[in-house]
């Protein structure tokens, strides 16, 4: 039951982009084309799931027993940075085209606040290792869903006549707002399904 709750919650109800304002920079930055959005999603899913798993192990078996809670931020960011490095090396070898397309945004996953955010949320909810990993996966899936939908919308902008002042970021934010309004509708999903 809790597993379903975490997955549904991460993907739809507490969607990182629309409900928690996490990971907005890459969300706006990489969503110009569907293809780069897909590549970024893959990278984020991998990094976020692994980072959640490793940081929760670190938290439960190292930081908490030794009372080193104040080192959490530094320890987590180092774990995330090394995972990003790993993904970067892998992509450079396996998918050089995608690697070029993602450009600066790949190392920027380190500063994607969704990744550090989900690990911090895991600590706040005091999830175990399994639940943390699941939460990371669900959050990443939700983020990917958001960016893929949004990239689809942005691809259509090219065919449209957009007022000059709204071009780029202003319109991106307003359309994100409208999508977020739609996702607000999922807030009562739980009550509807489980009652």
């Amino acid at each position: 039951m809790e597993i379903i709750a975490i997955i549904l919650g991460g993907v739809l109800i507490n969607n990182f982009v629309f409900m928690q304002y996490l990971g907005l920079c890459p969300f706006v930055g990489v969503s110009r084309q569907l293809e780069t959005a897909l590549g970024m999603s893959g990278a984020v899913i991998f990094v976020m799931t692994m980072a959640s798993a490793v940081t929760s192990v670190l938290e439960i078996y190292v930081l908490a027993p030794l009372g080193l809670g104040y080192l959490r931020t530094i320890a987590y960011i180092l774990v995330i940075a090394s995972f990003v490095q790993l993904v970067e090396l892998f992509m450079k070898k396996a998918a050089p085209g995608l690697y070029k397309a993602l450009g600066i945004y790949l190392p920027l996953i380190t500063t994607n606040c969704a990744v550090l955010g989900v690990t911090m949320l895991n600590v706040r909810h005091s999830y175990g290792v399994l639940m943390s990993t699941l939460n990371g996966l669900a959050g990443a899936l939700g983020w990917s869903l958001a960016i893929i939908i949004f990239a689809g919308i942005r691809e259509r902008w090219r065919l449209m006549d957009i007022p000059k002042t709204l071009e780029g970021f202003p319109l991106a934010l307003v359309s994100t707002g409208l999508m977020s309004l739609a996702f607000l509708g999922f807030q009562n999903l739980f009550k509807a399904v489980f009652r």
Partner: protein
Amino acid sequence: MKRSVFYDFTKGFIEENPTFRLVIGMCPTLAVTTSVVNGFWMGLSVIFVLVFANVFVSLLRKVTPDEIRLPVFVILIATPVVIVELVMKAYLPAMYEILGIFVPLIVVNCIIIARAEAFAFKQPVLNSLADGLGIGAGYTLNLILISGIREFLGTGQITIGSFRFPATPFFEPAAVMLTPPGGFICLGLLMAILNVLLARRERKTKAQAV
């Protein structure tokens, strides 16, 4: 070319305004701006971290090899964030609860790492200090502006401590402004307005030149 320290301070307000011109550091901009007080404390924390990180990155810029500069930046940024976190937890526990995960998330606020990379790593200490103060202050002003608009429209009044303005709301508050969609749309429209103003100013200077 010698850059003036004063210019490095003032450019953060308009020309290189982090939210509206550089469009970085969006997540906290939207997440904490549901009330003016939250925006103010968040801004203050960012100023502290930014100045600390900028000064130390600048001090260490000659001994840091290029290849490992990012890990060095991350450590130099994470340290002041932990300081802010602990101080806030001790003296402002209520605010610490409200800002929640967005305090530790200052570590990954792109503003700070962007300034370290683009500015402090190449400039002398005093300029970096001015840059940190200026960009931080510009950011704080943005947060206060956005949170002011959202709090006013969302609750009908602006509350700072026990001070309320206006004392009783004179219109039906639109609670949607406090929710995520309201935040996105508010910031988007603000940016559009700023674009209109800048375009108008540009036209004016062009007309004068002719």
